[in-house]
């Protein structure tokens, strides 16, 4: 016990005192905020082209003045008589394109062409397409004798609202989309945590081997204690960073919200009817105790199990480049967990397949996290967690064996067969 503590303390303190760690802890939330902020900004505002676009328009079978079509930054001009002159104008940049609708029957726009099309982006083409089709549709309706007022009368809005019976037996709002989003967000965090900090454990074991420290270490402490100390020490590092990030993000978000709200932009009334409002309302109906319980248990459990495997890989290989061969099979179950989560959990979150894969310790951290918002029975959560912890302890024991023999083997790259031999040998 004492040596686990000594190892844990060392692994924790050397990392937390590291300058890169401190800088990253403070910088990461800012970088992530900048990254997403930038991405959202460029996606919505920055990339849009605000320049005026002149498009020549000719549709012999559609009685329409070209300027009636104009919208946003697009101005439609009647086509010129001389084709070569039009092409000249497009080439000179005076006009952006020439839209020619040759179809007799406007219900199928098969002979509709846009010359100069390559100067339009995919979004612009989509926009044009939708616009023209809508206008043609309106025109056809009018032709069929349906007035605009009739059209308004037959418009359908809203949609199916999903409700569920909550723990108290009363009917409450349920939001399947929100639940899936929360589940996947948790699974993503677990996945990232496993890889970032699991590989830290791996590098720690590898460092001792490549720097030839390991023999002294193994003569001073049981490999099992060493492994456990390393895994727990790095877990604490991860948690420290994790909570620091949450704390900093809240500060940052709070600051941003304050900055925006003091700008005097009250939420417009119509926004309250938007789906986002429903989204937030659905939040209150989430089974929070379940979600938090599952997240904490499987966040830690998943990390513990996988980092014990990573530690063994670190002990087995001689250099970073040999890691790849072992990394792939180890990360496969997690990726598989996501596939299962996507295909099965979406269709029936409490179905048999979902149940099975949330019991298997190698996939349970991901699958259980995705299932968590969908009322998983407590007995299942506990059973799965116990299974996960038992597997973890077994893996630490196994990894310690590989570590003990693996650390003394230098030279040739180990194979899976070697690993098995080491396990039996020690």
């Amino acid at each position: 016990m004492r040596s686990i503590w000594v190892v844990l303390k060392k692994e924790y303190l050397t990392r937390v005192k590291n300058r890169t760690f401190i800088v990253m802890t403070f910088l990461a939330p800012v970088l992530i905020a900048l990254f997403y902020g930038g991405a959202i900004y460029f996606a919505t505002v920055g990339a849009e082209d605000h320049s005026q676009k002149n498009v020549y328009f000719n549709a012999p079978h559609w009685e329409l003045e070209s300027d009636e079509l104009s919208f946003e930054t697009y101005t439609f001009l009647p086509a010129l008589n001389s084709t070569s002159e039009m092409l000249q104008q497009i080439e000179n940049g005076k006009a952006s394109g020439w839209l020619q609708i040759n179809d007799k029957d406007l219900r199928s726009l098969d002979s509709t062409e846009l010359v100069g099309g390559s100067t339009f982006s995919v979004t612009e083409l989509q926009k044009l397409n939708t616009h023209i089709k809508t206008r043609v549709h309106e025109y056809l309706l009018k032709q069929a004798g349906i007035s605009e007022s009739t059209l308004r009368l037959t418009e359908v809005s809203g949609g199916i609202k999903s409700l569920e019976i909550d723990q108290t037996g009363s009917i409450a709002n349920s939001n399947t989309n929100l639940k899936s989003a929360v589940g996947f967000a948790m699974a993503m965090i677990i996945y990232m945590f496993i890889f970032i900090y699991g590989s830290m454990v791996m590098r720690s074991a590898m460092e001792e081997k490549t720097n030839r420290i390991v023999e002294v270490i193994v003569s001073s402490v049981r490999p099992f204690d060493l492994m456990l100390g390393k895994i727990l020490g790095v877990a604490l590092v991860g948690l420290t960073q994790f909570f620091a990030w949450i704390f900093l993000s809240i500060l940052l978000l709070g600051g941003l919200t304050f900055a925006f709200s003091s700008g005097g932009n009250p939420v417009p009334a119509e926004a309250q009817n938007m789906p986002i409002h429903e989204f937030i309302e659905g939040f209150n109906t989430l089974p929070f105790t379940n979600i938090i319980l599952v997240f904490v248990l499987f966040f830690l459990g998943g990390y513990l199990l996988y980092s014990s495997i990573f530690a063994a890989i670190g002990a087995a290989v001689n250099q970073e480049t040999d890691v790849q061969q072992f990394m792939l099979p180890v990360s496969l179950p997690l990726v598989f967990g996501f596939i299962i989560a996507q295909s099965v959990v979406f269709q029936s979150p409490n179905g048999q397949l979902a149940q099975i894969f949330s019991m298997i310790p190698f996939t349970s951290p991901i699958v259980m996290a995705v299932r968590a918002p969908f009322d998983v029975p407590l007995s299942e959560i506990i059973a799965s967690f116990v299974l996960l912890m038992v597997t973890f302890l077994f893996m630490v024991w196994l990894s310690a064996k590989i570590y003990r023999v693996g650390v003394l083997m230098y030279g040739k790259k180990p194979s899976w067969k070697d690993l098995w031999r080491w396990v039996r040998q020690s």
Partner: protein
Amino acid sequence: MLKVSHVYKYFDDQCVNNDICLELREGEIFGLLGPNGAGKTTLMRMLATVTSPDRGEILLNGEPLTYKHVPLIGYMPEERGLYRKMSVVDQLLYFAELKGLSRSMAKIHVKKWLQRLDIIHWADKKMEELSKGMAQKIQFISTILHEPKFLILDEPFSGFDPVNADMVKDLIIELKNAGTTILFSTHRMDNVEELCHRLAIIHEGHKVLDGSISEVRQSHFRNEYDLSFAEAVVLPAHFNRAPGDSNSSNSLRVTLTENQTDKDLLDWAYGTQQLKSFGAYLPTMHEIFISKVSKQ
């Protein structure tokens, strides 16, 4: 103090230690000799609890060796290294704590040794900032910091520069005087004759010899005598020059045959009236080592 009885260790099907028996007495320096690949490191690893024997028994102070004995043992492997990113003092404290010292005791010991070797000003330096020679000093300190009763040093002089090698030698003698039992492996015979009370030679996994240096040399007496004369003499034909003879006519090394006695040789030498010295020649450890290792 330490008793190794009938220890076997296999790697795959290869027997690396074959029926090894050794006994170390309290407070002695014991040399473990053998060519590369003889199985010295494998044996030392078992004594340092890094691995365990496949068969046989190792007793420390009469008890089977386990992790419980870690605080009593200091081990410096041949493959050695330190954490590059850690400071000297953090590193030493970590090793001391792993060996069972309390934090406060560890601090006292670290300070003592850094002062002792006059390197207290390195305390906060990271290992990667230190030269190789400096790192070697730290390595040795980390091995003896917890004042082990039993010290195992695998090739302690290899990889050390001459200054540090001398420092290690002095420290070994000092630790022995303080009562530490020391086992070290080497292939430098001068170190063996200078430091060891007793020794063992291992070859291809077998122990081929052990005992005190004088015992071993006595037992390998090959009927050879060294003689020196004031002036050149001519050796009678019935006496044979020994293989190590210098070929000078003033000093001779002679091997006696079975029916010659030392008295026969002495009588002749005395008769020349030039004799300055006469003595039995005991083979050096180097010669014994070579003969043991090449004969097998």
